[in-house]
C-alpha cells in the first residue's frame, strides 16, 4: 500500500494517475459515443430503437446504399473543397497577420488582440450575421462589391449553386483566421532572434530569411495547425445551418451537415452514422500527421 502511494506521489504512478483519470473520462464520454455511432452504421435503426444498442444487424447495407445515392460523391467532393478552401484561406490570412504583427510597432499587441474576436462569438450569432451580410438582394457584401465597381449585378451568394459553397467558406475563413493567427504567432515567437541576425550579417534579404529560416523552423507548428484545422473545419456546422442549409440542391452540402440532415431531418440514423464513420477515417489521417509532425519536439 505504501509502495503504491509513494509511486503515485513520486514515481511512475504519478504519471499514470495524471493521464489515466482524464483518459478514462474521455473514453467514457467521447469514446463510447464514437463506438455507438460506428456500431449504428452497421445496423438498421429507427427512432424507437435509439435507446438500445441491440438492433438488427445489416452489415454493409448502409454503406452500399449511401454510395449508390446520386448526391454522395458530390457532397464528399464539396467537403474536400470546403476543407481545403477554408484551411488555405485561414492559414494564409492568419500567417500574413501573424507576420505583420510580428514587426511589432507601437499598438501592435493591442490591435492584434482585436482579431481574436471571431473566436469568442457564438457560432449561432456568427451564422446569423453572415446570413445577413451574404443576402443577395440587400446584403452588405454585394453593396460593397458594387460600390467599388468590382461587379455590376448582385451575386446571390446563398442561392447560386456556383457560389453557395464559397459563401460558407468565406464566413469560415473569417471565423478561423484568429485561431491560425495566434498559433502561428506563437510559433514565430519561438524562433531565436540570433538566427536572423546571423543571416542578416551574412547578407540575406528579408525574403531569403523568410524562406530559409522562418519556414523551416515553423514546420512542426504548421503541421500541427493544419492537422488541428482539419479537425475543426470538419466540425463546422453552425455556418451551414445558418447560411445556406446545404443548398441549393446540395451544392453547399458537406459531410458533417449531411450526416445531421440524414439523422435528424430524415430520421435515417443508420446512414447518418455511416457518414460519421467516413469522417472518422479522414480524421485518423489528420491525427497521424499531427502526431508525426510533432515527434521531434523536445521539452525545454
Amino acid at each position, binding site marked *: 500500500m505504501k509502495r503504491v502511494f509513494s509511486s503515485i*506521489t*513520486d514515481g511512475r504512478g*504519478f504519471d499514470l*494517475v*495524471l*493521464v489515466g483519470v*482524464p*483518459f478514462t*473520462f*474521455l473514453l467514457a*464520454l*467521447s469514446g*463510447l*459515443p464514437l463506438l*455507438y*455511432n460506428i456500431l449504428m452504421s452497421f445496423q438498421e435503426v429507427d427512432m424507437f430503437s*435509439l435507446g438500445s444498442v441491440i438492433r438488427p444487424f445489416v452489415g454493409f447495407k448502409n454503406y452500399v446504399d449511401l454510395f449508390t445515392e446520386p448526391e454522395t460523391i458530390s457532397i464528399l467532393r464539396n467537403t474536400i473543397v470546403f476543407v481545403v478552401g477554408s484551411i488555405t484561406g485561414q492559414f494564409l490570412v492568419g500567417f500574413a497577420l501573424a507576420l505583420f*504583427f510580428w514587426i511589432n510597432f*507601437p499598438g*501592435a*499587441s*493591442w*490591435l492584434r*488582440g*482585436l482579431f*481574436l474576436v*471571431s473566436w*469568442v*462569438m*457564438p457560432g*449561432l*450569432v456568427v451564422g*446569423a*450575421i*453572415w446570413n445577413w*451580410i451574404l443576402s443577395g438582394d*440587400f446584403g*452588405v457584401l454585394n453593396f460593397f462589391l458594387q460600390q467599388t465597381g468590382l461587379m455590376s449585378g448582385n451575386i446571390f451568394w446563398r442561392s447560386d449553386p456556383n457560389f453557395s459553397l464559397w459563401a460558407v467558406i468565406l464566413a469560415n475563413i473569417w471565423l478561423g483566421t484568429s485561431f491560425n493567427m495566434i498559433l502561428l*504567432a506563437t510559433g514565430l*515567437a*519561438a524562433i*531565436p532572434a540570433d538566427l536572423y541576425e546571423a543571416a542578416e550579417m551574412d547578407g540575406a534579404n528579408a525574403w531569403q530569411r523568410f524562406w530559409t529560416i522562418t519556414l523551416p523552423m515553423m514546420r512542426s507548428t504548421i503541421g500541427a495547425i493544419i492537422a488541428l484545422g482539419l*479537425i475543426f473545419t470538419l*466540425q463546422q*456546422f453552425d455556418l451551414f445551418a445558418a447560411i445556406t442549409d446545404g443548398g441549393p440542391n446540395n451544392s453547399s452540402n458537406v459531410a*458533417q451537415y449531411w450526416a*445531421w440532415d440524414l439523422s*435528424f431531418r430524415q430520421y435515417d*440514423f443508420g446512414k447518418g452514422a455511416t457518414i*460519421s464513420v467516413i*469522417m*472518422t477515417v479522414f480524421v485518423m489521417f*489528420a*491525427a*497521424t500527421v499531427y*502526431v508525426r509532425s510533432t*515527434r521531434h519536439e*523536445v*521539452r*525545454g
Partner: protein
Amino acid sequence: MSEVARNRLLLALSVVMAAIYLFPLYWMYVTALKSGSEMFATPPSFWPSSAQWSTFAYVWESRNMGRYLWNSTVIAFGAVSLIAILGTGCAYVLARYRNIWVDIGLFLILMFQVLPASLMITPIFVGFSQLGLLEYPRLAVILAITAKSMPFFVVLVRATFMAVPMELEEAALVDGNSRIGAFFNIVLPLARNGILVSAILIFMQAFGEFVYSKSMIQDIQLQPASVGLNSFMGPNTSEWNNIMAYATMYVTPILAIFVLLQRRIVSGLTSGALK
C-alpha cells in the same frame, strides 16, 4: 522611411484591416439599433435612422436575460474548472515524455474530437438518461462540454509545458522534491500563464455552447443564454433587431472581459516560447 513614419503607416494599415475584419461585429451592433423594416432596406443603411435603444431594455426584460446569463456562467465555469483539473496533469505528462504511449495518447486525444456535438448528442443523451444524469441537467451539460473541449485544452497546454525547461524540474528533483512537489512548486507556476490563457479561451467557447444545452436542459429556469437566443430564432423570426440586441448583450460581456485581458492572453501564449 523613418522609424516613426513607418510605425504610423503600419498602425494605419492595421486599423484598416481591423475595421474590415470587425465589420460583421459592427453590423451586429447596428442591426440591434434598427427598427423592423429598416433592416430590409436597399441600399443597406450603415447607421440606423432612428436608433432604438429601447430594444435592449425590452429584450432584457422580456427574455429574462439575467437568469440566462447566470446559467451560462455557471455552466462555463463548471466546465472550465473540470477541464483545468483533468487536463493540466494530462498535458504535463504528454509533454514530459515522448514514446509510443505518448504517440498513442496524442492520437486518441485528437480522435476524441472527431464528431461535432450535433452527432454526439444522441448517444450521450441515451447514456446520460440511463445513468439518471439528466436529473441534474447543468451537471450533465458540464460533463459533455468537458469531454468536448478537453482535447483542445490538452493540446494547447501541452505546448506550454513543452516550453518549461526540463532542467528546472530535474534540479528540483535532485534537491529532494517528490514528483508531486516538483510539479506543483516548480513546473505549474511557470506554466501558469499558458494554462490561464487556454482556460479563458475554453471558457468563451463553453459560454457559447448550445447543442448539448438545448437537448439536455429541459427546464427553462436552467437554460443558458445560447438556448435562449436559439429559441428566439424560430422559422418565423423577423425580429432580427431583437435577436441582434440579444446577441449584443450576450456577447458584449465576454468581449469586454476579452479586450481587457487580451494583452495578457496574447503575451501569455507567445511568451511561452521565451527561452
